[in-house]
């Protein structure tokens, strides 16, 4: 086991990344609790749900929906909405700084196995995104909420949810890339 802060390709060691994120995760939780945003410890979903909630201005039938109302009035959802901007800026700065900033439409490995058709990738991504959105609402949290936070709290619900993320994810990945199954 090498314990250097960065690896050869300029990436942080997983230990470095893990410690930074754990400190951030704890600090965020304490902060949210002090500001009494009890229901939403550190997550991404609520921020995206905040965007979804604003669709009530397009479709008036959504205005009375409890999920929409909840996400529009929750202060934590508001904070997490701005977290999204932070993540975008942070990832941009990280990519620029490590000279990894390479805009692309579809991932290179996808193109290698599934061809350069942009619409094919977009269709799969749209369905995938839909599944992420629906799944995250049903499971009350995404990878950040259920694993980074939920596993760290040893929540029974998050343990099961996280295990299900991987079970389904592994099956779908094997279907998408069948030839890479054996080494």
């Amino acid at each position, binding site marked *: 086991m090498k314990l250097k802060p960065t690896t050869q390709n300029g990436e*942080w060691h*997983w230990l470095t*990344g*893990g410690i*930074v994120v*754990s400190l*951030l*995760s*704890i600090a965020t939780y304490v*902060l949210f*609790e002090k500001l009494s945003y009890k229901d939403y410890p*550190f997550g991404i979903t609520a921020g*995206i749900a905040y965007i979804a909630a604003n669709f009530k201005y397009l479709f008036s039938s*959504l205005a009375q929906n409890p999920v929409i109302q909840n996400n529009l009035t929750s202060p934590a959802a*508001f*904070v997490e909405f701005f977290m999204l901007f*932070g*993540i*975008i*800026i*942070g*990832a941009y700065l990280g*990519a620029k700084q*490590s000279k990894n900033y*390479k*805009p*692309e*439409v*579809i*991932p290179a490995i996808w193109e290698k196995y599934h061809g350069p058709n942009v619409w094919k990738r*977009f269709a*799969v*991504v749209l*369905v995938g*995104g*839909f599944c*992420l959105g*629906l*799944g995250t609402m*049903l499971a*009350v949290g*995404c*990878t950040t909420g259920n694993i980074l936070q*939920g596993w*760290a*709290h*040893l*929540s*029974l*619900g998050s343990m*099961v*949810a996280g295990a*299900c*993320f*991987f*079970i*389904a994810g592994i099956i779908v*990945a*094997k279907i*998408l890339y069948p030839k890479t199954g054996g080494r």
Partner: protein
Amino acid sequence: MILQIIIGIAIGLIFGYALQRTGVTKYPRVTGMLLLKDFKILKFMLTAVTFSMIGFYTLGSLGVIELHPKPLDWGKVVGGLIFGIGMGLLGYCPGTLIARIGEAKKDAWVGLLGMVLGILFFAVNVKFFKTTLMTKNINGDISVVLGINQWVIVPIAALVFIGIIYLANKVDDFKKNF
């Protein structure tokens, strides 16, 4: 209001930067993990989980914070599986999806649109889901469910996590992109 905006951006900034620099936002990494070929994300994640677990339980014992373990219901199972399908198709999870937008990967925008639609679908059908999948739930506090003191469970969990990290690291010693 301004404070909330600043807090949100600051937290996100550190998170996005750390995700990007650790390299866990890369498409081959997420899919590579699901193909059981590249365990860096798993090692990174479990490191974060182990340290935060010790932090949360210590602060909880000291009375600084109150832990809110998430209860178990069918939504966790069904939603978890649907989420996993999405993660497999997309090659990102929601956090890395947002980070990918910052890295100028255009398909991430389509993924975000999909997520918004998925959330709206849930919102529109919330009555159905709340009365079917999300009704009965089991207490999420594992030490209450098992009836064991949390300070017995935390070290055991830490050892399990570290064990998995150790095994994953053994497998991971050579570099591969699928």
